[in-house]
């Protein structure tokens, strides 16, 4: 049986393995979200380093501009994606019972959605 394809289509993020999905998309999302989160963390370190003895005004003004609210929401979405993949990995590694693992992951998913909505609320209610 000769594979006549010039391009081997069994690699990449759109080929399904035995479980019906593969990990390439997760691997990539984990890296991309890690970069986004890392940049935001570095910026926050810079902010706190340059704003010694922080005033309420400076803190409030940081989150006032709409572009910073948008950036923070993107960071929050990246955070829940990153955390979800990490939690899925930990759950699959250490929780072998299907029921316990499913319940744990279900609880984590709900918590992450709560955190996202809470974070967006904080940005727009203040």
């Amino acid at each position, binding site marked *: 049986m000769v594979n006549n394809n010039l391009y081997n289509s069994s690699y990449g993020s759109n080929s399904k393995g035995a479980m019906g999905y593969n990990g390439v998309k997760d691997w990539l999302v984990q890296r991309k979200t890690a970069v986004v989160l890392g940049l935001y963390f570095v910026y926050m370190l810079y902010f706190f380093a340059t704003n*010694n003895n922080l005033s*309420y005004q400076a803190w409030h003004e940081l989150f006032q501009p709409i572009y910073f609210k948008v950036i923070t929401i993107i960071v929050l979405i990246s955070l829940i994606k990153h955390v979800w993949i*990490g939690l899925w990995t930990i759950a699959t590694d250490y929780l072998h019972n299907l029921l316990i693992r499913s319940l744990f992951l279900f609880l984590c998913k709900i918590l992450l959605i709560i955190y996202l909505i809470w974070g967006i609320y*904080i940005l727009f209610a203040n």
Partner: protein
Amino acid sequence: MQKKDKSDLRPVNLALYTIKFPITAIISIIHRISGFFLFLCIPIFLYYWQYSLSSYNNFIKIKSCLNTNICKFVLLIIILGLFYHFIAGIRHLLMDKHIGDSKSSAIFSSYFVIILNIVFAIILGIYLW
């Protein structure tokens, strides 16, 4: 793999204190532990973020709370956990690019991660106190 049938007679050693782990394994497991720890800290971050932004008085309350030693210590632990996960994560990403994935350079980079974290802990301690 999922079901443990009676033919699975492989030996199990769960007494982890008897196993000598390489430094790279320590770095890796602490990366995972700090990740889970940070997940548990997310509501703490969100709560204090919300409380500090809500009004001037609440901001001052948090600031005065942060003058106590216990709050400074807790904040130091949490931020250090975040920094550790960040630095070990960068090490992970560099290894994805095959930078430092030989055995000797992996050992070198794990000591480098430890040293960076000690330096950051000292800087953060000076900043907070």
